[in-house]
């Protein structure tokens, strides 16, 4: 069984979605429990994975490889390193919470909702283990189908516009990556990522391939200026959709950068690192200001996601600059590690924020900030969690939000104090938009009579929020296990940065 642990992780939720679908609209409770069972099982298997993975050894482990398409030499190749393991465990963890979160909220065709969620989960896990570029691409694109359905059926009033925009926008980005992969295949006659990493390429080729990859991943992350699909998709998606979108799906973009841009086109990556750094800073500062003026809670958190993901891309590419220009591996390691921790942390924090908004939306059916105010008076427990996650969102020390951002800022300082200065703006802007949001929603007098009728969170909601809170605090207070898990993999990535391919 341990030889096929990764396959099991991918296929368990995908195949598990079938009985959930078969449970049908007539037996919604059966569908709910079945999907919960599958999600919990998947989580347990992912914990096995965590135990099986040897963090000290590093490298790609638990590899599985079967010849998939003989005449093209395409393999069904799976393997994980520390980064993948962390992302997979986060995915399965969030998987349980979105299913619990949707429990009685989704009344319309719950079986289809749950099945789509499970399929999405399986495909996302697949993306995080694929070692064959074509397999990665197929899974990377296949994610769009369940997400398209999730937003389209259970979304808000403008869901059709949002979901079409989401699908076409992301599809647009990734097809260029496909062309780049086919070009690489012409040269290497394989889609194996390790072989592609060793393939010598001229700078001109690297530059073209770099931009082809960049557009695919930048849209997924999303980076400025191709982030415009995100606020629409987030706002219109059902709560669970938003949670998965923010917590896991955005990471697919940065994860792709680590797996494709870094090893395959390192020279172009180093050459254009300034561009990514600049775009990341714009995301952090400018999008932070954009978030400040939002009147829709979900939109505000969506924009804050863009800003936070800016830290991930900043951390990855500041490492490039540090290694190539200053040869300072230690600081590069710090930046890269910060980016990785930020990835995981943002998964939990944004997932929690969207869950909180979902909890309020279920009661009042509005996402406008102005419709709320004084919520703490009727929902004190909810207020407690909301404030906690808001603090994590603005990077308060002791929460997970702090660790990653701090490390990235430190690394940027070593590269260029100006970069660090702009990045550190987030501490002010992030606090501004988050705290102001809390102030307008939670504190103050109750002005809207409907707010007075809001009920305190029930057991199910408490469970979801407690789980998120535990993760956020654990990572904030004691990030060492996570750092250790990813350490050798991150050092390996940093070593790769120094390799010239020309």
């Amino acid at each position, binding site marked *: 069984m341990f030889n096929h642990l990764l396959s099991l992780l991918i296929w368990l939720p995908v195949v598990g979605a079938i009985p959930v679908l078969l449970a049908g609209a007539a037996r919604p409770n059966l569908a709910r429990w079945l999907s919960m069972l599958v999600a919990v099982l998947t989580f347990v298997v992912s914990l096995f994975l965590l135990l099986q993975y040897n963090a000290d050894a590093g490298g790609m482990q638990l590899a599985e490889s079967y010849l998939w398409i003989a005449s093209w030499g395409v393999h069904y190749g799976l393997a994980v390193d520390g980064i993948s393991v962390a992302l997979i465990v986060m995915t399965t963890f969030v998987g349980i919470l979105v299913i619990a979160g949707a429990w009685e909220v989704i009344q319309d065709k719950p079986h289809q909702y749950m099945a789509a969620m499970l399929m999405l989960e399986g495909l996302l896990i697949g993306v995080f283990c694929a070692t064959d570029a074509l397999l990665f*691409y197929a899974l990377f694109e296949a994610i769009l189908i369940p997400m398209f359905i999730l937003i389209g059926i259970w979304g808000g009033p403008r869901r059709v516009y949002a979901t*079409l925009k989401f699908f076409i926008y992301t599809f647009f980005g990734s097809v260029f990556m496909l062309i780049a992969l086919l070009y690489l295949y012409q040269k290497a006659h394989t889609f194996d990522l390790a072989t592609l990493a060793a393939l010598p390429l001229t700078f001109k080729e690297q530059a073209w391939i770099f931009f082809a990859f960049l557009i695919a991943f930048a849209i997924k992350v999303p980076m400025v200026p191709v982030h415009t699909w995100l606020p629409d998709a987030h706002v219109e998606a059902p709560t669970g959709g938003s949670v998965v979108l923010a917590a896991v799906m955005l990471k697919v973009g940065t994860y792709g950068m680590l797996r494709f841009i870094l090893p395959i086109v390192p020279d172009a990556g180093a050459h254009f690192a300034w561009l990514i750094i600049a775009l990341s800073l714009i995301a952090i500062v400018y999008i932070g200001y954009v978030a400040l003026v939002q009147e829709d809670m979900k939109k505000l958190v969506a924009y804050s996601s863009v800003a936070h993901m800016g830290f991930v891309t900043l951390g990855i590419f500041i490492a490039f600059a540090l290694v190539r220009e200053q040869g300072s591996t230690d600081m590069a390691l710090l930046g890269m590690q910060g980016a990785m921790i930020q990835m995981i942390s943002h998964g939990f924090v944004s997932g929690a924020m969207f869950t909180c908004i979902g909890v309020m939306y279920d009661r009042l059916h509005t996402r406008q900030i102005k419709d709320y105010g004084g919520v703490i008076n009727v929902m004190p427990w909810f207020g407690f969690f909301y404030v906690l996650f808001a603090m994590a969102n603005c990077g308060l020390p002791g929460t997970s939000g702090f660790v990653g951002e701090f490390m990235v800022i430190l690394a940027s300082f070593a590269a260029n104090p100006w970069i660090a200065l702009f990045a550190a703006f987030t501490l002010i802007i992030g606090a501004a938009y988050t705290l102001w949001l809390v102030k307008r929603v939670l504190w103050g007098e109750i002005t809207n009579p409907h707010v007075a009728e809001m009920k305190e969170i029930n057991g199910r909601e408490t469970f979801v929020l407690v789980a998120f809170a535990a993760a956020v605090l654990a990572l904030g207070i004691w990030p060492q296990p996570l750092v250790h898990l990813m350490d050798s993999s991150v050092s390996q990535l940093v070593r790769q940065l120094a390799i010239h391919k020309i």
Partner: protein
Amino acid sequence: MPTINDILILLPEFYLVAAACLLLLLDAFMKSEQRPLLHWISIAVLLVAIYLVIAGQPEQAITAFGGMFVRDDVAEILKVFALGTTAMVFVYARPYLIDRKLLGGEFYTLMIFAVIGIMLLVSAGNLVTVYLGLELLSLSSYALVALNRDAKLPPEAAIKYFVLGALASGMLLYGMSMVYGASGMGGTPSLDLAQLHNVMSYTTAPTLLLFGLIFMIVGIGFKLGAAPFHMWIPDVYQGAPTPVTTFIASGSKLAAFGMAYRLLDAGMGDLSHHWQLMLAVLAVASLAIGNLVAIVQTNLKRMLAYSTISHMGYLLLGLSAAGPEGYAAAMFYAICYALMGVAAFGVMLALTRAGFECEEIADLKGLNQKSPWMAFLMLLAMFSLAGVPPLFGFWAKVLVLEAAIHANMLWLAIVGIVFAIIGLYYYLYVVKVMYFDKPAEDSALQVQRDKPLRVVLSLNALSLLVLGMYWGPLLGWCRRAFGL
């Protein structure tokens, strides 16, 4: 003088001719209440034909009647899929034909004759055989389009198809005569494709040969339905009875690929650097016109018609790579398109019943509410047509794009992929209508109860998913057929 061996090589074809004639007789002498039996007999006839094709598969390419007829792996694969998709069309067509009182010998006999045309066409080793096969297929198709002669649209579509088809056949024939003439200037005139292969090296009239090539490409373009020879497609698709449209979208496309391959590679292979660019132009035009015009269609059949045009653009991408890699990719694409087309039209047939023709996109409103399974099958077909992994259609696109890049036509691959993004919209729109819209108050949607139709259609659509995850063997066959 034909020997018994020649006849044995053509056994599946002769068998089908005999079976079709027998069906006609049966139809004439059967009592009307026994007529439905014809349906099952016809399906059995096709299945036996598949068996004959597979069982008699030669080790390597063999020819019959002095090179007129070629039996090789390319022909075998195309025949099996043409016969198979036609059998599927028969299964899907039954409720439709019963509801419209069209179930009778004509439909089945004409379809089988059309299939014989396909089989001759893909096995052609001579210009005469090409023409023979093409005309047999076309004439049967014209008649099939007009099958429902009391309705308004079908006769109109048939006339359009016939006039344009006759014109295209004329062009093809004209081109063939020029090629024949060119082959006689400086050598012995020949209609044999294998001998025409190196006409360019000795002919004293290369211009004549090139003109011949151009006219032949017009004929091929028409049969494929590639822009700018696509005018007939939307009207015929919309006007023809849906089962016939299904056939034109599946078996017919396999035949068109076979014809293009025979004429261009076997016959005009030496001129590939000339026709490569011509096909590339046709491909770009088809991709552009097909994808852009499909966006504004409200009629599902018309939308799928324009989508066919764009898909033929992708097929041409592979053909224009002009090498075994490209042909293998194009054949893979043709097979894939046939399966997707049958599935998409199959769902429409499953939703059509007496007095209700499911053909507007709006007719599918809220299908997920009424029949989640049918909606799911259509979803598979749509995502496959759009080329979204992990569905079959995606891999077919990847293969033709790879072939184009392999042939140093990166620009063509980029054009192809850009139009894939544009094309995405109208397929997603169908999914949107089925899944995100509520059914109309007076929605007439109802799924046919016909068991065979449901089972075969489900298998058909699910095969898009299964083949999308495991397409290696099929690609292997396609590549082996072209000696890779």
